[in-house]
């Protein structure tokens, strides 16, 4: 999401202000979320991880990696680009950023959507719409590294790395080095 926000504001750059999670913090949060996913679903049968392009994809892979080590489970992991489902097409530049690759039919599965930052909820809405075109999942859950508030739709996460109160005009950047809060200038 942070990536996408940046691409919407061409010509401006992200200026970091405060690091709120270190790389180690981020890793600990991921491990915790992985365990929560296994716990909440009573195991990993039928669980599919889907990372949202582009920020959610490395997180989904890390969660899958953690689950492989901790639970000895091979959780199918896919990617989803929601550009074609966005509700702001024509309002601002929207381009697909990367491929969509759903590893299996989703009907009857427990799909965990993974993204880096939950903000207005519009990306998740688009993702829910997109997912429905791949089959009727039994349940869809949402895992985000940062929930920064300012929701515009009735969407809430099931797994959160960190709740982070922000101002609307701030930006949150999630990378393997941690989580940083800053502004666009």
């Amino acid at each position: 999401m942070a990536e996408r926000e940046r691409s919407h504001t061409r010509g401006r750059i992200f200026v970091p202000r405060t690091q709120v999670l270190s790389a180690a913090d981020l890793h600990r949060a991921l491990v915790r979320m992985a365990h929560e996913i296994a716990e909440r679903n009573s195991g990993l049968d039928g669980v599919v991880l889907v990372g949202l392009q582009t920020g959610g994809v490395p997180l989904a892979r890390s969660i899958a990696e953690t689950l492989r080590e901790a639970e000895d489970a091979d959780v199918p992991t896919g990617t989803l680009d929601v550009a074609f489902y966005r509700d702001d097409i024509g309002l601002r530049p929207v381009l697909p950023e990367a491929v969509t690759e759903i590893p299996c039919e989703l009907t009857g599965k427990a799909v965990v959507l993974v993204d880096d930052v939950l903000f207005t909820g519009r990306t998740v809405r688009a993702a829910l719409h997109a997912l429905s075109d791949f089959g009727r999942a039994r349940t869809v859950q949402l895992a985000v590294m940062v929930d920064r508030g300012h929701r515009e739709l009735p969407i809430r996460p099931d797994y959160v790395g960190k709740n982070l109160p922000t101002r609307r005009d701030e930006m949150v950047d999630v990378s393997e080095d941690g989580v940083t809060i800053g502004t666009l200038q």
Partner: protein
Amino acid sequence: MTHLLSVSDLGRDGIEEVLRVAEAFAEVGTRPIRKVPTLRGKAIATLFFEDSTRTRLSFETAAKRLSADVLSFSVGASSVKKGESVRDTVETIEAMGMDALVVRHASAGVPVQVSRWVRRCKVVNGGDGWHEHPTQALLDCFTVRQVRGQIEGLRVLVVGDVLHSRVARSQVLAYHALGASVTLVAPGSLLPASLEGWPVEVGDDLDAELPKADVVSLLRLQAERGSGAFVPTLREYTARFGLTARRAQLLDPDAVVTHPGPMVRGVEIASDVADLPQAVVTRQVTNGVAVRMAVLFLLLGGAA
């Protein structure tokens, strides 16, 4: 992108953007539900003043997979037969609230003229006279890139009726922009009067050119446009410029053979050659939908 009238409107970056976006739409075509809500509420008219079932179906499929509303106009059932001018037709259709017009006309330049007549519609050239057929060239490049990985550095042969071919003009621009080298192989009577400014070589011996080619683009001999009169006989044309079974043996195994369709088996391509693994004709058709989705999306949804 304001309109897509010529491949030259895109430039290398523009072509690459279309191809990149088309990748995403190609994936959509493999889903259980091959439709996305992207252009919901947009209306696209296909204005075909010249018959072309396949191009029209491809554009309309693309528009429908984007959830746009499609209005299909063809001359056969229209007021043009009652003497209405193209301009009046365009203004009428636009007034119905269209967001994009796909225009096909037997006269070169009509989409350019239409782009001057519309108020807010985007115009897509669906093939105009001998001028251009940009989406065909884009889907050819997409298909070749899919097979060969990249276009840069490839040697492309364009064989046949270049004079009357809108496909050839768009291909030359597109392949050249993407870094391929293009050689035209045609009888002199089917080459344009002047190739000044065309980034091409010209060869006249297909046998000598074929082994060097990475891509062979066969053009249709447009007999219905009188192209038959430009060569002594179809037999002689096939003997000199047809991709016969014998000539197919000269092809590199990794070469890609494209054809814009409809194929005239036995003239520019031998029947069994059309079914060789190097021939990617059906793949071109499949990719055509994705490329046209990309074009419509970039025109109507890509940017504010």
